């Protein structure tokens, strides 16, 4: 009875005890909690990598960040891309490309294409809502884009859904707080 009294005064056992579930667990159950967390992260990772393999694009889902493609795409739209080598790039198609030296991909429309017999192409892009073509955005001295700069071609889109990503990028503390809370919930709560 003395021992119970000592435990009672030195640790909070009433009120909010977030470690309550953990304290009742044996080694295997504790390992299972960590494993559960790892499985959730791994599943998300595998789905993403699986999409990469399926579509052939290194970034199969992108968010439109600017209004340069209005009225087709608005800021905050989610785009689904594919990047199959057999698909030809033709004028009028919407492509997502990366300029050398910058890491943010750009979503614009192809307006001019030069194609050789062996399949090599050079193309020029322009945003629908822009006054001029994209040569100002390309690298110094570069006037045309090539196949290797392409991240993918737009195949489908979801409006507004990407705003969540934009908000989380503008307020990184919010993103980390959200991830920390979700991670803590999975680690500390015992599922049935």
């Amino acid at each position, binding site marked *: *009875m003395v021992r119970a009294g000592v*435990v009672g005064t030195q640790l909070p056992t009433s009120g909010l005890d977030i470690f309550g579930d953990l*304290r009742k667990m044996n080694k*295997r159950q504790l390992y299972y909690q960590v494993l559960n967390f790892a*499985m959730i992260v*791994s599943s998300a990772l595998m789905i993403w990598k699986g999409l990469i393999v399926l579509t052939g694009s290194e970034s199969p889902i992108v968010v439109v960040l600017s209004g340069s493609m209005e009225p087709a795409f608005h800021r905050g739209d989610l785009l689904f891309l594919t990047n199959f080598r057999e698909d030809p790039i033709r004028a009028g198609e919407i492509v997502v490309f990366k300029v050398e030296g910058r890491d943010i991909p750009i979503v614009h429309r192809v307006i001019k294409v030069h194609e050789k017999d062996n399949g090599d192409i050079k193309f020029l892009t322009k945003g629908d809502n822009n006054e001029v073509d994209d040569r100002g955005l390309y690298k110094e001295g570069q006037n045309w884009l090539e196949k290797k700069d392409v991240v993918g071609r737009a195949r489908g889109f979801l409006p507004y859904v990407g705003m969540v990503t934009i908000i989380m990028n503008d307020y990184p503390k919010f993103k980390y707080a959200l991830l920390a809370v979700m991670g803590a919930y999975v680690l500390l709560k*015992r599922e049935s």
Partner: protein
Amino acid sequence: MAAAGQGGRSGGGGGGSGAGGGYSSGTGSGRSGLLDKWKIDDKPVKIDKWDGSAVKNSLDDSAKKVLLEKYKYVENFGLIDGRLTICTISCFFAIVALIWDYMHPFPESKPVLALCVISYPLFILSMFVCFPLNRIRTYFVMMGILTIYTSYKEKSIFLVAHRKDPTGMDPDDIWQLSSSLKRFDDQYTLKLTFISGRTKQQREAEFTRSIAKFFDHSGTLVMDAYEPEISRLHDSLATERKIK
């Protein structure tokens, strides 16, 4: 009957009347002292009575405690260890995919990525087949119908224990506990399965009670009400054995 109940209470140590008969020694030496403060095994189980999963977990844990401590069965971790290893291996595949893709950027890493992405769910599926926690789900997976629908009525096995045969000659008898508690429902079903080591015959007994019978208004599990039910379940299977 009353004597058995008394024995169970002091053995289980979960009774509300804190006789304080603890197992972990309260010597107060540095490291074991810290462990004592962390572990709350011996204190009466108190949970949020509105949280369905906490209720089910505490009922399952207490049933496990009764079987392991009162009847001195030994828990068999084979099923659980198997699941843990398979899940760990699948996480390995995910890590391999991550590192490989980082070292050899995308187009070159395609075959390795494809391999990892396919093996990850395959391993998890194999876990449901090789280490099933209930028989119905195995059937579905083997038939190729992956039911994501969690059948509330399915009972999952949470304890496999065996009793070593005292003469050492016959193979061990196996006791299995499985339970179910539907979401937002108060009816808790506990099923005890006995598989005789010698005859390989299987016998089952179960009860369904409202959880209100076992918890008081503050959410404390009252072992005095719960433990006799477990014992009765166990004895009903054990006595049949003697008659045969």
